[in-house]
């Protein structure tokens, strides 16, 4: 008995089963609500029975008409799925950026992903027309985000005596430059300003499952890499010098984590625009309530980020129905007060 108790005590307290269950439960609950709510009320119980009807050997009959079925599977489900992916991605990438920079205010856009994606999308919106514009926009945003962060990383690396602060400054430099170009292009093409603006504020727009299928592979790779590095992110908390003195190749870990987080973020912004604050709100709420270890923060950011963004999207499409609010407005509306709270309660670590 005593031996058993010592054995138990020997395990490092990490993500508890209860919190993991809460995280997964929030994803399921948010998804169900988002599937049910909309211009056509599908009802939770019919959605439940519709889902069960796809389970073999249960012999549950779906109560849905063909139209309802199409609304559920061709319109709402893809949008909910994209919301889950983007929310999970932005929150986990934000957590990773905060770990790599030891800075509570870092977010996935810190190194120029947003500015790069914004420029890419703006160029396409301004200079191509009709269907081509819609198809090219995600690709341009994806490439823009990767190029922006890549340029910031190379610039930061080329500076002597580089530190994480140098890298952040390089990110600020690149972002300012790309934003300047983006603003110029936007001003030269006033007829598309509104479209650019809508894109920048963020929107989850799906046409069937195409967006989900395109974004998913990048995000899966990103999550796998980030989750495998969760313990090393904890080690980085003691600073570069001490992390290397316990045997960690700090610049390599930083490069791998940044590359993975950026890849996923680029895939997210390609299909959702620039949704603000999710990457900061979610990891910080988890740190404040559950714990600061990345063994806790990363998996829970995935879950709560997904649930949060899907619920934000429900508000975005119902509050002013039949019009839609940009989802970035909803996340920022709840995010800004929370962000102020974080500023007031956390100590600044590093720069």
């Amino acid at each position: 008995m005593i031996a058993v108790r010592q054995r138990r005590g020997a395990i490092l307290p990490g993500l508890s089963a209860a919190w993991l269950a809460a995280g997964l439960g929030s994803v399921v609950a948010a998804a169900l609500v988002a599937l049910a709510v909309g211009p056509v009320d599908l009802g939770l119980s019919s959605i439940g029975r519709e889902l069960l009807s796809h389970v073999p050997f249960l012999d549950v009959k779906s109560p849905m008409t063909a139209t309802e079925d199409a609304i559920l599977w061709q319109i709402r489900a893809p949008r909910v799925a994209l919301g889950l992916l983007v929310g999970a991605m932005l929150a986990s990438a934000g957590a990773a950026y905060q770990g790599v920079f030891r800075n509570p205010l870092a977010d996935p856009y810190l190194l120029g992903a947003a500015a790069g994606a914004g420029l890419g999308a703006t160029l396409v919106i301004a200079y191509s027309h009709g269907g081509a514009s819609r198809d090219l926009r995600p690709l341009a945003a994806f490439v823009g985000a990767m190029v922006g962060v890549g340029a910031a990383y190379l610039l930061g690396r080329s500076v002597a005596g580089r530190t994480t602060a140098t890298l952040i400054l390089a990110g600020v430099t690149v972002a300012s430059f790309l934003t300047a170009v983006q603003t110029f292009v936007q001003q030269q093409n006033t007829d598309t300003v509104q479209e650019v603006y809508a894109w920048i504020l963020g929107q989850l727009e799906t046409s069937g499952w195409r967006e989900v299928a395109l974004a998913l592979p990048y995000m899966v790779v990103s999550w796998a890499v980030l989750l495998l590095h969760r313990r090393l992110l904890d080690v980085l908390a003691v600073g570069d010098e001490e992390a290397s003195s316990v045997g960690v190749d700090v610049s390599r870990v930083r490069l791998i984590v940044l590359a993975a987080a950026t890849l996923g973020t680029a895939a997210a912004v390609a299909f959702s625009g620039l949704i603000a604050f999710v990457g900061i709100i979610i990891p910080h709420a988890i740190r404040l309530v559950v714990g600061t270890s990345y063994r806790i923060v990363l998996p829970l950011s995935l879950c709560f980020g997904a649930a949060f963004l899907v619920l934000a999207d429900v508000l975005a499409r119902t509050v002013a129905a039949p019009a839609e609010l940009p989802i970035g407005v909803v996340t920022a509306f709840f995010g800004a007060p929370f962000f102020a709270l974080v500023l007031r309660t956390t100590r600044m670590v590093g720069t």
Partner: protein
Amino acid sequence: MTPLAVEGLRVELDGAVVVDGLALEVEQGEWLGLIGPNGAGKTTVLRAVGGLVPYAGSIRLFGDEIAGLGRREVARRVALVPQAPVIPPDMTVLEYVVIGRTPHLGYTGAPEARDVDVCRSALARLDVAQLADRRLGSLSGGERQRAVLARAMAQDARLIVLDEPTTALDVGAQQQVLELVADLRKSKSLTVLSAMHDLTVAGQYPDRLVLIDRGQEAVSGLPGEVLTEETIARHYGASVRVVSDGDSIAVVPLRPHVEREERVGS
């Protein structure tokens, strides 16, 4: 095998030569103290020994040149305690100590029960087992320093390198930490290299001292041989009185050139 053998060590930082032609040898089980004025290069020597700065010359850890050892292997052989460790305030003591197990884990590996046992026993050995679940930000200076030492112990290295381990501790906490290091050295047959600021402490704990000045060895020998009033005046520019009772040495700073009459003010 000699835990640490340094020969012709030369380190440049930002183009300035900080260490120039230093030789050191620390025997198994020995405690070598590194003293010298501010800017003499003590910390740089320790960082080089920890594999954290590029160097010219030779640094052998248990027989092998550190430039040829992987980062992880260096971390298994030498545990470095910096002068001002980064203390993440929200991390628990146990999570912090587990960081010391990093060189024994795979790249993406997680600490196993055995690793956590090593950490808990390191905390127990330092009499702070009860702090395991406390947050670092809530600890006193002395408790914090024990947590830092426990992390170094968890690293399971046979050479421990301490950079001014008692900075910012009160005299009681200083003594406790140094006695702990002395105990650990005996019970775990560790070898200790430490940079020391306080010359009285330097006179009492290490077996041998090396005084470096401007990146070079100035004097070395037993504490009684190195800590003389002339030597300290020459290298520190300080006026001190060295008091010895045969076993231990105390270095007491004295205010230079003070006229008694003036001080009384009559």
